[in-house]
């Protein structure tokens, strides 16, 4: 029994390690996360920016802020509404995209690339297994997310 439990834990660690080397993952609240070893970047998805409309202000987190998975990392104001941005994984803020302070519209024009919001040092990757890869996220959207 102990051996089987140990194997399961090993497999989970292996699975998460593999996921950390792969690319983009998505949350049900339409954030994306790009993991690169012990760092990750986050932003909002193309679906989110389209739903929000023209972004007019992005509140970025302070450097060195420590966050648990699911905690609010920033806020975005569009012409339609103010919405939260959640942090998909546990981490410590290392960099923020200061371009967004003067040009918040980059979130609309390039939400999953130049419109990144923050970069963090990964401290807790356990939520990774609950995130969707690109195919799963597209199916999630097609199903009426």
């Amino acid at each position: 029994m102990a051996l089987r439990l140990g194997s399961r834990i090993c497999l989970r660690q292996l699975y998460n390690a593999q996921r950390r080397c792969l690319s983009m993952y998505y949350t049900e609240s339409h954030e994306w996360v790009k993991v690169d070893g012990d760092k990750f970047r986050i932003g909002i998805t193309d679906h989110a920016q389209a739903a929000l409309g023209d972004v007019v202000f992005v509140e970025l987190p302070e450097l060195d802020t420590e966050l648990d998975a699911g905690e609010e990392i920033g806020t975005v104001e569009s012409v339609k509404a103010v919405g939260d941005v959640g942090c998909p994984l546990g981490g410590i803020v290392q960099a923020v995209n200061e371009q967004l302070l003067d040009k918040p519209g980059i979130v609309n024009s390039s939400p999953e690339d130049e419109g990144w919001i923050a970069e963090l040092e990964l401290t807790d990757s356990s939520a990774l297994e609950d995130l969707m890869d690109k195919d799963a996220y597209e199916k999630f959207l097609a199903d009426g997310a």
Partner: protein
Amino acid sequence: MAACVRQGKRAKVILSNVTNVYKNLALEHWILNNWSFSKFDCLLIYQNEPCVVIGRFQNTWREVNVNRAEMEGVSIARRVSGGGAVYHDLGNVNFSFFSDKPSHCPTRNLHFLSQTLNDRYQLLTDHNKRHDLHIGDKKISGSASRLIRRGSFHHCTLLVNSDLAALSGLLQGDITLKGTATASVPSPTTSLLAALSRDVIARPRDVITPHDIVDHVTEEYLSLYFESMPAMVDLWGEDCCQETENNVIIVEKVPDKIIDHHHQSYEWIFGKSPKFSKRFEVDDDSSVSVTVDKGLIKAIDGSESNELVGLRYDPDTISRSLARHHKKDVL
């Protein structure tokens, strides 16, 4: 567009008899954060004593005549939704429509309000793409929304018989401030009663009061739904609220546990103004740039070693200090 009839869904109406803007905003925020709207929608209606309410990422000093507000005892508040600065007094009514995110639809809410007013009072109100209610080319209502993980609200003002002179005087801030804050979009504004007196509506009516509007909107809103949510017994205690026969909650006092004192703080009301700078003229041919962040002076002409650095931004204090130092330098 026809209003959606929410067959099978319930609704809850809350009428606040409290007129303190900080307490009403706290109540609104608490409802958003603590209730789940998967099974019911909610409408909160409240009025405030004279105050100015700015949007989440606005610059307080840019949007509000802060000195005049202080002199006249007009409160300044910052809400959690976006949009521009608005003036509230007891001639204005605020409607806050809560729902889950899929049901969030300001257009539907405004269509409902517009139709309700038009049917009752033979008015010609309408709504536009900016989510304003208007009569003719004048705005009588502004809207904003807040979305969180499990819920949302869309709220709007309705100028019934507000003091329009006070409104325009208080919403004139310092437009020389430079920064990235969300700016208000000025629009010609009127109130329902002012529009009536100018005969721009189909048929003038005598009885358009906030009280009558609140009663009628409540009744019409509940008629859209399957039924009202049952009584929420002991929700906040008998000394705070009562429920009427049709399960409308009347709030006489906002419970202490709901009031968020942080939202009455300098750090929230002024300090959440995004970073900005202002140029102060020292004499005919020199000026000084003051940078402000979190409501505190961060630098004077790029230097952080000035005695003003770290103090709260107050343009009058800064002008006097700069003039004093300039005089010393000249001497």
